[in-house]
Structure formats: C-alpha cells, structure tokens
C-alpha cells in the first residue's frame, strides 16, 4: 500500500501523536496513515480522542508530543489548510448571515478565486440540499440544516482532503443517506475523506478503511473486509449423512465445520449461499435456518472497545480480593 509514497504521499500521516489536557490523556500516541483518494473511517466511542485528533491535524490545538503530516506538509501548516475542508463536530455559523453569505465568507477565507466562487457556492448548496434556503438566515435553521450548511462549507473548492467530524449527528435518516451520497461524490471528485464517527452502520457503508480508536489509542486498523474477516454462513439442517467425506460436495464451496445440527461454511463467496443451501438439500438435509455469519462492524467494535474498557491490572487485583468491580472480562 504505502510503497508508492514517492509518487503520491499519504493524505494524512501521524507518528506517536499525543495530546494531554491537564491530567487527561486525550490522545495517546496516535499512528495513522490515510492514503490519498480513500474514504477513511475513524471510529471510536465518545471521548476516545477522535475530535482531539482532528484538531491536532488542523492546527487548532498543539500536540504534546509526536508529529504528523497533512497532504505532505507538517500538521497545522497554514497554506495547506487551503486544500482541506472541515466540518467541526460543534458546527456553528454566524446566525445573522444567510446560508449563501456563510459560504461566501468561507470561500473568501479559503482563498477561492473570485471568478469561480459563485458557481462553486451554487454547486455545494445543491449538493447539501440547501438551494431553496440559500437566502435564509442561518439563525432560523434547524440543527440538521446547519449541519448540511457545514457540510456544504467543507466541500467548497473541491478540497484535496475533507475532514468530517460526526457529520450526521443532527440528521434524520434521509439526511444520513444524503451524506453517504455526498461522501461518494467527494470521493469521485478525487477528495480524500476522513470521517470521524461513532455511527458504525454509516462507516460500514462508505469507508474503504477504518481505524478504531479507544482511550486515545488505535486498537485496530485496516481495510474493512480484512477487519471483519471472510463471509461465512451457518445452516441448521437435520437428516444429513454422517461419516468421512459425507459433506464433500459442500467442502468444494468453503471450509465446513459441523456441530450438532449446525453447519458453518467459512470462506464462502456470499453469492453462493443459495448453492450451499441447495447442496445441503441435495444431500438429503432438511434446512431449518440459514444465517449470514460475517461479523458486523458493530460486533468487532464492541469487542475491541469493551476488552479495553476493563483492562485487568494485576496490581489492582492483588490489593482488592474478590471486590465486585466491573462485571466484564
């Protein structure tokens, strides 16, 4: 993956990025690499350090230790910020300006050439579904409309990198679907999208790669397919023959495990699930249930985050015998 670094450097790269606020470790040595052109999901529970990471990338806060590069330049570089679009988690725009005026202000601050501003503002208004409200003051906007406005502002000028911090927190299901479309559109125009979210369904649908962060540390990272593992299917069937080689026709589809009435077929091409069922029936089996066995992102996430939530510290355990602290393993 990163081998062609000489040609296209990663959009984001951090090394041991650390941020301490008072006694709170907000980010504890973040190592991250986001390739140019991908949609990257940065996942974590509330308070995991996602927003802190974004603020460090944009120079809104200074790292306590570590460093990083955004679009090939050191983090916080002013000129580079002209190629980055950002929707803050806490999105607020001047209530006394109209949506169009807010975007004009941001186009101006972003340094977009005057000649293209008008068309560009119209484009992002359309994209965010705000064309009809362009001349209304944002003070009268619902939270969802304000978030759409922030999204529009972040897309002004086709930035090379778009950083969206919880972009759907105030949106209804229709709005969320719109955001997926917008992200797809941004990617097709060549932008790298860095998506901060705790809404797993969303991330699962749009992201190429994800990193899961917990307590300021990345606990898993990689392509979604690799993280979730191969697809598998579980079939409950009775009346199947027993003995060595009895399930040979099924084994041509994937690795088969048998436990009581349940068959688990791993490494199965999802398109061949009907073939697997047909094969079971062909072998004389009576099918009672079929379940898709692929782990969801949610299961993966909960597993990783809960494991880390209750680390067993030998020092604590030694001092407190049989204390009923924390129920989970």
């Amino acid at each position, binding site marked *: 993956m990163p081998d062609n670094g000489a040609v296209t450097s990663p959009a984001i790269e951090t090394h041991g990025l650390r941020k301490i606020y008072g006694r709170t470790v907000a980010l504890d040595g973040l190592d991250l690499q986001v390739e140019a052109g991908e949609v990257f999901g940065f996942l974590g529970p509330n308070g995991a350090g996602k927003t802190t990471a974004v603020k460090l990338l944009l120079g809104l806060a200074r790292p306590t230790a570590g460093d990083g590069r955004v679009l090939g330049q050191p983090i916080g570089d002013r000129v580079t910020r002209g190629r980055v679009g950002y929707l803050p988690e806490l999105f607020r725009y001047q209530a006394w300006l109209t949506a169009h005026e807010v975007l004009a202000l*941001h186009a101006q601050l972003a340094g977009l050439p005057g000649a293209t501003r008008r068309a560009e503002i119209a484009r992002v208004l359309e994209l965010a579904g705000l064309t009809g409200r362009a001349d209304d003051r944002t003070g009268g906007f619902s939270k969802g409309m304000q978030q759409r406005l922030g999204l529009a502002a972040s897309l002004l000028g086709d930035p090379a990198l778009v950083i969206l911090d919880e972009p759907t927190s105030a949106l209804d299901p229709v709005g969320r679907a719109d955001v997926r479309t917008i992200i797809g559109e941004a990617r097709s125009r060549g932008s790298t999208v860095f998506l901060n979210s705790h809404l797993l369904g969303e991330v699962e649908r749009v992201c190429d790669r994800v990193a899961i962060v917990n307590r300021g540390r990345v606990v898993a990272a990689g392509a979604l397919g690799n993280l979730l593992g191969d697809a598998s299917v579980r079939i409950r069937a009775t009346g199947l023959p027993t003995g060595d080689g009895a399930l040979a026709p099924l084994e041509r589809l994937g690795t088969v495990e048998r436990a009581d009435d349940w068959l688990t077929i791993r490494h199965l091409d999802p398109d061949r699930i009907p073939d697997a069922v047909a094969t079971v029936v062909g072998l004389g089996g009576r099918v009672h249930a079929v379940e898709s066995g692929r782990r969801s992102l949610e299961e993966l996430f909960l597993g990783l985050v809960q494991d880390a939530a209750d680390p067993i510290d030998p020092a604590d355990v030694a001092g407190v015998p049989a204390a009923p602290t924390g129920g989970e393993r």
Partner: protein
Amino acid sequence: MITLRPMLAIAGLTLREIVRRRIVWVLLILAVVSVALVGIGVQRLVSFARADGVAELEIRIGVSQVLIMIAFMFSFVLAMSAAFLAAPAIASDVETGTVLAMLARPIRRADLVVGRWLGLSIAIAIYAMVSGLLAIAVVNLVSGHLPPLPWIAVSFLAWQAIAVLTFALALGTRLPAIAAGAITVVVFGLGWFVGVLGSIAIVFNAEPLATAADALGVLLPTDGLWRGVIYGLEPPLVAMLASGSSARGLQASPFFAVSPPPITFVAWSVVWVVLVVAVGVLLFRRREL
C-alpha cells in the same frame, strides 16, 4: 507572503455583524435621544439665564462646562459600549465554536484578532464622532456656544473608546466575554480615578502620589486621552482665568485641562494600542481550541 485579505474580510464581517444585529441602530437611537434631551436641557437653561439677565459671557462659560459634563458622561457610555462590543468579539466565537470552522481555513489567528479590532474600531470611531459632533452642533444651535476645537475633542473621544475596546478585545482572546467586559469597565473606572488622584496630588504637592499616578497613567492611557477631550472643549477664557494661582484647586478637577496632552503621550497611546493588540494576538495564538 503576507496578505491582508483575510484580515480585511474579518473586519468587513465585524462591521456587517454590528449593522445586521441592529447594535448600531440601538446605539444611534440612544445617541439621538440623548442629544435631543441635552438640546432641550441646555436650551431651557439658557433661556432661564437670559430671562434673569445673566451676562452672555457668563452663560457661554456655564454652557461650556455643561458640555464638558455631558462629554464626560458620554465618554463613560462609550467606554461601556466599547467594552461590551469588544469583549465577546472573539470570546463568544470561541465559546460557540464559530471560530473552529473559520480558523481551519488558511488564515492566521492574527488575521482574526486584528480584523476584529479594525472592524470594531471603525464602528466605535464613527459612532463617537457622529454622536459627539451632533451634541456639539445641537448645543451650538440652542446656546450659540461653540467649543474651540470640536474636532480635537471628538477625535480624543473616539481614540479613548478605541483604547478601551482594544483592552477588552485582548482580554477576550483568553477570558470569557463577561469577565473580559467586566474587568475592562473596572480598569477604565480605576484609570479615571487614578487620574483624579494624580491631579489632587499635584495641587497638594504630594510628590510620590503624583509620580505613582503618572506611572499608572502611562500603563493605562485612557484618562490622559480624556484630558484631550476637555482640552478641545475648554474655552480659552476659562483656561486663562484658571491659570491664576488662586484657581489652583480647579486644576485638580477631572473636568479641567489648560493644555493638550503632550505629543509624546499621544504617540505613546498609539504604541500602547499596538502593544495591547499584539498581546491579544500572542495570547490567542497560544490558545487551544
């Protein structure tokens, strides 16, 4: 390459905010109402005095002192307005998060601070000068009294307000809006008080107190600028009368000035404003958002 465009964009935004949020109209309506009341008051004073057969010269002197009192009250109102406009200018943007989206753009934090300062300074200067000249014109209309240097007076009035505004803005880069505004008003009041104390110290030859007051006057030049306002309003005749040794007590008055603030002091006040803006920029640059 340093470009002024983002800074000017912020200044324009600040001016637009003042107009859009109707702050400017509230201030102007207040000014017009106050000026109208001043006009009516002075007109009645003059007509009563004339009916009683008071000499015209005495009336003029009386009106000149009334005008200085009015200017004094207006300078306080201006200082308050400046403090409460400037204190939230950056502080509220930080508190609400508006600043996040703006500072993620390729602009410097200095652009935001200086742009805000410029926009607010233009607004407060226009307000001070328009209101001040209006009051002077109305008093002239009803009494015939015209201060010797009206432009000097309103310029010092505006510059004093800008000094107060600068202080509040700089505090607001680090403190919550309410704290920045309250501290500014208290410090402004103290500055005025120290000025009065200094004048009294001179009259009573209390050397150390006078030196201390002078030093504080350098640290906070607002009261010194107020002396410039009086200088522009004080008729030369009153200044002449007060120059006699019998009138030494008059020199302790906060409403009296025979000479303009020294040019070095005025130059220092400019440096002071620049320094305070610079401190504001430094504080804001260090701030984590």
